[in-house]
């Protein structure tokens, strides 16, 4: 009881082969699109990778790039095969390759689906990575003289300007870390010494933010210092305070930026997956139809094509048996049609006994 049985005349088979050839070439283009999207995502992540704590997120663009390259290769081969399948004689060349090709394409199509789902689910991992990465960057903001950290100030400033954000969750994160280096603090001044003494860990904490938190939308010149004391500034009312700095935290801003990119990419990858599935189904039908034509022997006759020869359960069972028996060759079974010479049979039993002795 086959799954999805369809009868094909000779003309229909040829048309199917032509259509599949065209679809395979379109799939090569979509494979290139997949590759392009993977490269774009990799570039976007690498642009701001210093604010991500670990590079685990990079497996998503790598998956897309690999799948894209595989798509181009597999569909290029598929195009060649389908073009030859229109003619029974040429099909014989590809006969042995067809089945492995179909299985390969099936697994590869599953990889595309996995890639799409990965893109969609990356949000929580990314959030954690950004939280830790931003905290680390802000902690070492002041270390512009330490090798390995000297670029963090510039990168964080550019990030806050570009994404219109301030701090990790909000601008108050800057109040909890020392972002002014000791090199630029006059340690002889009483004000500085007092502030250092007041802090438990001897850090110079201020209620001020770097210039990159300033918003150009504010109607007044930017107020960066003494933010906890609005009365220290003339006419610094609620509305002024609201417009003065960027209110959004950089973690949220980056998360939004990457979520939009990844969601659009995953949507496109899902569409590509559906298209690949269609191509795979067509190739399977063509393969089975051509094999049946050869079995019947008459190239002009009608033949049947199907997705699975037997029902799903039977196919699964037979495949499972094949996998189970894969490693075992020269099985001595009691088939009267096989002429097993007595000596070989005895050697087989002897070697089994030796193995049993060794293991016990």
């Amino acid at each position, binding site marked *: 009881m086959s799954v999805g049985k369809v009868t094909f005349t000779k003309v229909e088979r040829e048309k199917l082969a032509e259509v599949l050839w065209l679809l395979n070439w379109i799939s090569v283009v979509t494979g290139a699109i997949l590759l392009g999207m993977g490269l774009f995502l990799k570039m976007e992540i690498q642009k701001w990778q210093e604010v991500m704590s670990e590079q685990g997120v990079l497996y998503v663009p790598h998956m897309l790039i690999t799948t894209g390259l595989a798509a181009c290769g597999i569909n290029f081969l598929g195009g060649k095969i389908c073009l030859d399948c229109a003619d029974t004689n040429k099909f014989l060349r590809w006969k042995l390759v067809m089945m492995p090709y179909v299985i390969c394409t099936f697994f590869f199509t599953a990889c595309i689906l996995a890639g799409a789902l990965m893109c969609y689910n990356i949000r929580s991992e990314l959030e954690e990575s950004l939280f830790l990465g931003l905290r680390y960057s802000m902690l070492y903001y002041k270390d*512009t003289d330490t090798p390995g950290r000297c670029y963090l100030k510039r990168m964080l400033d550019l990030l806050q*300007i570009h994404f219109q954000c301030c701090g990790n969750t909000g601008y108050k994160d800057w109040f909890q870390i020392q*972002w002014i280096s000791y090199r630029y603090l006059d340690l002889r001044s009483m004000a500085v010494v007092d502030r250092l003494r007041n802090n438990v860990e001897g850090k110079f904490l201020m209620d001020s933010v770097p210039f990159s938190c300033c918003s150009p939308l504010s109607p007044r010149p*930017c107020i960066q210092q003494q933010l906890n004391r609005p009365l220290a500034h*003339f006419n610094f009312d609620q509305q002024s305070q609201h417009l003065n700095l960027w209110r959004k935290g950089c973690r949220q801003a980056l998360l939004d930026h990457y979520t939009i990119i990844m969601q659009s990419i995953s949507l496109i990858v899902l569409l590509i997956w559906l298209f690949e599935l269609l191509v795979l189904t067509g190739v399977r039908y063509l393969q089975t139809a051509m094999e049946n034509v050869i079995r019947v022997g008459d190239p002009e006759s009608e033949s049947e094509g199907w997705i699975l020869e037997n029902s799903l359960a039977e196919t699964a069972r037979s495949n499972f048996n094949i996998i189970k028996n894969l490693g075992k060759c020269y099985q001595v079974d009691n088939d009267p049609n096989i002429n097993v010479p007595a000596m070989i049979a005895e050697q087989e039993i002897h070697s089994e006994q030796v193995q049993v002795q060794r293991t016990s």
Partner: protein
Amino acid sequence: MVVMKMKFPFQKRVKLAQGLWLLSWCATVAGATTFTLGCLLKTELRRRAEVMDNTDIHVVPNTLMIVGLASLGINYFASKICQDALDAGRFPRWKNFLKPYFAVSCFFTVLMLLSVIMSYAMKGSLESSLKAGLRNGIRFYKDTDTPGRCFQKQNIDRLQMEFECCGNNDFRDWFEVQWISNRYLDFGSKEVKDRVKSNVDGRYLVDGVPFSCCNPRSPRPCIQYHLTNNSAHYNYDYLTEELNIYLRGCREALVHYYMGLMNTIGAGVLSIFILQGSVLVSLRFLQTAMEAVAGKENTEIETEGYLLEKGVKDTIMEYLDPVLKFFLLKNGGKVEEGAAADKPAAVP
């Protein structure tokens, strides 16, 4: 005397027509490219229109757009003409069309070259426009409550951050302008009152710059105020500090940006000009070669093609005569009639 005479056997004519057809389609694409480049340049200029005092520089992208559109038409007709050229029956219907066609095409091709020259020549005009525009922008920076000027602060801030520049000529322009509005100055404080009194015009001038002048590459937190006072900041020397704020002026930055853009576009348009010129020259040769065939029984004879029938000066006069007569600048005909009428009367 004929200019650039060349012999054209039949096969060469055929090859010329085929090559010209292909070339004219390439030139059509090139014309569309010219139009697109003009649109691009105009968009870029309009993005910074708030810091430009006048729109004189817009003549460059406007010309490019006109020339692009015209060249689409010119090359479309060129391809149609060369398609009909080898057919002796269809070619004569283009006869009356070709003279004005060549006049118009030459005009627009020369205009293309002019636009490239203009893009280099108008650097001075752009610079003075930016100088005036930026001066106004900096002057009205504080007027965020005045309608018509309330966006100046935002524009100048974004400009300085994007182009990594400060002020008009350099950051010292901010020292000469009151960029902090009176609404945010506490006139009860002694410091403010002293500073305002010590200024002739009663303005509050500081040796400080807005936050948008700050350079993210600086190793230390940005110093915006008391820039000229070394003792106000620890370990700071005004004269040797290079990374704290942007040292380049915004006028220089913008001129550099726009000239770079126009140079790139100019190089592209120059190559398109050469392509367009070659299309017209080939079409002229094809036309003159085919005209010699007209009326003959054997269409496969060898003919001569030339660029201009008379000399360059004579040809220009031939084209300019109708134009001048139209504008009544040359009333040659009327003067002669009057003289002829007078003469018989004068003789008794």
